[in-house]
């Protein structure tokens, strides 16, 4: 192709432009402008998908570069390889779902302009995070995503919103200072070795970092991303943030903001510091498994349904981390498909929670008992999402868990058994969830008058359920996105025998 359409920068720009439009028009148009904006971005991402050359997914395509600071070598370099592309599609899809959901959400009545602007900006920044190949730009986008989310939680959240918003902000802000330190150190090291400053990912790849220093840098990056992911014991901000955020906020937070952590772990921690990753891998796998088991334990005793889903996110992220640091083809494959799958199912489960709240005005588990069975369509959707999250075959999370066991088996049978035990625990809470919401006895007769899911909410649900089932039944389509990337990673960067 002689002419390359700048898909990435356009899809970063569209939400920003539309948020200006929201400012210009009246408040009642805000939601439609936001819908148009996210819809257009989604459309651009789908068109980008058709233009993407799937035969070489490990090559960065749609590459653009604009110099920002010549002296320090900071360039706005944007582009997408297969991994970025998958995350980019997930972002545009989930943002669209979040906006569609918000239109139908009864909770969102005040300050609509700011609300939708926050979501549009988040989308734009997150796309930036997933598609940039310059560390400083990455850091800037990574930090910027905090702000709109902080306001979403702090303004439209539930009772404890201020505490949660600050906890969220402080946790992530402090942890990303480590990231800044890491980026600066890496760049300075590059200056010392090669004589010029650069933050470009590809140039930094070629460094030969001494072992001790590499582990130090790895840990600096890791702390930031571990808090974001989150990995136990850095996870306590998540249940609070999720518990108090409005539904669409939780959806975006769980589905795409957490993925920034795991994406960055694959891209930067493994990509830039392969030796350190190999050295530390056993500990990180242990941490991941610990994360799964602890979070699954905590999940089952939660009394607030949103916290419940939040803790379950932590355990899913544990799977992502465990699989990732097994550092095998199957492991990385499992890790990325689980990221994508969790993005969908957690979004779905938070919408389930939000939907139930809109009907019953409570998040308390025990007062939700048997609530959804009076809404057959909703019950079906919930069952589909919940069982997919549990890892039932035919649902999206199955492949992640299955391939994690496959990868663990390559190391040792004992490890695979541990993973299986963890997987069992992480299934148990979903069954408990379904039992409480769906099967338990509900005496109050008045609650028989539930309205079933319809309108915007139904549309949002379908946009989640359809991909969930697609991942379950035709996983090879999604593997095709990033097969090349992880193969490249394993062959040339980790230099593992194939």
């Amino acid at each position: 192709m002689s002419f390359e359409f700048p898909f990435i920068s356009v899809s970063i720009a569209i939400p920003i432009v539309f948020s200006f439009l929201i400012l210009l028009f009246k408040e009642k148009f805000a939601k439609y402008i936001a819908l148009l904006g996210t819809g257009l971005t989604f459309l651009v991402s789908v068109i980008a998908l058709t233009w993407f050359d799937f035969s070489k997914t490990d090559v960065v395509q749609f590459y653009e570069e604009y110099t920002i600071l010549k002296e320090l070598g900071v360039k706005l370099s944007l582009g997408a390889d297969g991994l970025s592309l998958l995350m980019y599609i997930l972002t545009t899809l989930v943002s669209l779902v979040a906006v569609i959901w918000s239109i139908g959400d009864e909770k969102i009545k005040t300050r609509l302009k700011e609300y939708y602007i926050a979501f549009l900006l988040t989308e734009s920044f997150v796309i930036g995070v997933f598609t940039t190949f310059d560390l400083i730009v990455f850091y800037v986008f990574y930090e910027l995503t905090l702000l709109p989310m902080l306001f979403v939680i702090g303004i439209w959240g539930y009772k404890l919103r201020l505490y949660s918003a600050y906890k969220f902000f402080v946790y992530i802000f402090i942890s990303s200072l480590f990231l800044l330190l890491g980026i600066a150190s890496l760049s300075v090291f590059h200056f010392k070795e090669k004589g010029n400053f650069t933050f470009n990912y590809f140039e930094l790849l070629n460094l030969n970092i001494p072992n001790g220093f590499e582990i130090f840098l790895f840990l600096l990056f890791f702390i930031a991303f571990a808090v974001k992911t989150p990995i136990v014991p850095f996870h306590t901000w998540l249940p609070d943030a999720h518990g108090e955020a409005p539904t669409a906020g939780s959806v975006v937070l769980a589905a795409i903001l957490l993925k920034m952590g795991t994406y960055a772990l694959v891209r930067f921690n493994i990509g830039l510091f392969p030796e350190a990753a190999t050295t530390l891998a056993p500990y990180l796998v242990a941490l991941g498994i610990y994360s799964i088991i602890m979070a699954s334990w905590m999940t089952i005793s939660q009394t607030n349904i949103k916290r419940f889903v939040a803790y379950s996110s932590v355990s899913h992220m544990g799977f992502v981390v465990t699989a990732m640091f097994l550092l095998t083809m199957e492991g990385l494959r499992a890790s990325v498909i689980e990221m994508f799958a969790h993005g969908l199912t957690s979004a779905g489960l938070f919408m389930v929670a939000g939907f139930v709240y809109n009907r019953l005005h409570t998040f308390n588990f025990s007062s939700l008992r048997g609530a959804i069975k009076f809404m057959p369509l909703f019950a079906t959707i919930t069952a589909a999402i919940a069982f997919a999250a549990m890892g039932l075959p035919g649902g999206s999370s199955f492949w992640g868990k299955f391939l994690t066991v496959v990868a663990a088996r390559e190391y040792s049978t004992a490890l695979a058994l541990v993973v299986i035990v963890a997987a069992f625990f992480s299934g148990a809470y979903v069954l408990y969830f379904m039992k409480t919401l769906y099967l338990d006895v509900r005496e109050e007769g008045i609650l028989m008058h539930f309205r079933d899911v319809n309108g915007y909410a139904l549309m949002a649900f379908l946009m989640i359920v359809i991909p969930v089932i697609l991942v379950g039944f035709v996983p090879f389509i999604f593997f095709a996105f990033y097969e090349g990337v992880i193969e490249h990673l394993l062959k040339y960067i980790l230099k593992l025998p194939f």
Partner: protein
Amino acid sequence: MEGLFVILTPLIAFLIILAFGRKIGDLGSGILASVAAGLTTIFSLVVTLKAIHNPIHIKLYNFLPIDNYTLQIGFYFDSLSSIMTLVVTFVATLIFIYSIGYMKDEFGTWTFKFYAYLSLFLFAMLLIVLSDNLLGIFFGWEGVGLASYLLIGYYHKQKKATNASFEAFVMNRIGDWLFIFGIIYTFYLFGTLDIVDIFAKVESVDKYALGIATMLLFGGAVGKSGQFPLHTWLPNAMAGPTPVSALLHAATMVAAGVYMVARLYPVFEATPQTLKLIVVIGAVTMTMAALAGAVHSDIKKIIAFSTMSQLGYMFVALGVGDEGGAMFHLTTHAFFKALLFLSAGAVITAFHHHLYDIFKMGGLKKYMPVSYVAFMIGALSLAGVVPFSGFWSKDRIIASMYEWSGVLGVIGTIVAFITAYYSFREGFLVFHGQERWREHYGKEVKEVEGVMTVPMGLLGFVTVLSGIFGLWLEHWYVGVIGGEEKGIHLSVAVVSLGVAVLGIWLAYAVYVKEVIDYRKAYGALKAIHTTFKEQFFTEKLYHNILAGGYMQASRYSFKFIDRGIIDGFINALYKNFFSFVRFLWKNLDIKIIDLIIHESVLTAFRVGKISRQLQTGLLNHYILFLTIGVVVILGIMLYILDRL
């Protein structure tokens, strides 16, 4: 092509009912599900006739590349799978028809869901039976688990039912994870998931590793077939509607475990240690379940325990190397067990779901003659009385047990005796004797309607017919699926027939003639009675200690680790930071700096009066400071790096 229709018809029925169930209505959905099941039966009959001598292999599409191997979705019809398909679909069709009558009381409350789940259940079971690769089997395996979860908890107004479905799924998940691990293990041994390829390579792999793989696979079967130690869900699953119990116990779900082992028998055969484990598990289960069945009083739970016990027989048969016997017993059992459940369901329907305790029934035979006859045919077959179908299959298994070891054979004979006793204990208490139900149930009872009696009659007919021609049938069946040919052992046959008759006679003496007062006897033997009834307290152990302990651990770990330690640390940090800052503010800012500033401001004023010209903007200062800061940080970094 018929092969695909066999699989797809129930799936299509499921999707149609799910999407349009509200429009079609409950009765319409029931009829649709039954018609779909009937069509499946016809298709599978056609396929069976073709496939019984020449296996048919259908490959659909590439599914998943793993490690140089590409998994293809496909189905494999050989004699074993196609006969199993025929049995499953035939029994399922009759049960579906019966369920239209059984669920009639429930019509108007979204009953179409029930038929959707039934169709899903059938589809998942066919997936297990017909898949040509282990992952396909696993898909069906989980699908069956899901469908049974939905069906067992169908009466979601009862706490009992919802707990039972929860328990069933959890227990199944344990087995399932073992199973999936077994599949992965097998995959690493063979490099393929295709069962036909696996059979071809059995000789070439490491026997020790294969042993582990088969044990894991068997773990899945233990969960699905309700064998010890994952057995407690099976009797509790009786809380679901009776057609579900019949379906669960006759041909789908619990039979899946036995079928899976039989399907992969060439692999299991190569690992004698696993076969020994199978024998032990099977023998323990069959004894424990028979003892529990002999003391229980719930009309359905007794039959559930009998299923558990008969599955134990099948596993023992697989373990001792009599694959043909196991599959033959599975087939005959499917018919007479369905029959027993359907007639129990008829009794429950007659009482409109008010009575379940057999001690509160009695004397029903003159009110419900068809159900009575059906039950008795089923019970005679279960007890192993000639010439009913159960006799031939069970006798064959007991003979195989004697061949393997004398002790095992004796256990088999004793369990056969208990089986005869408990099945007739139930039959006599329900259908004979005084009409005790009049104290508990105000209305009259009458025979159930045609839509329920006809399936019972058909099943009874098949049971009797297959019994009469049992010897030839066994010969043909075992020959077709490639089992070992065995003649009838006259001595074993006579002994097992003898103990069966003895068991029936004992039940007759105690519960009809009442030679001893059984109520007093229960009082006297309370300890042993409870032990048997609670299946040696395994259920209590699982529910209270394991599950309860897990919940407690969860609560405490949340409270102490998350809330206590981590959040406590964060909050303390936060609080201490503030008090530290306040301290700084009070002492440093106010006392020292402010003083200095104050003084300097005063001085500045004095100086300022002199030098008004030296003004600067605030912004410039900031930029200056920022630049200095960056330079300092970069300088420090450079210095550190120089030192490395």
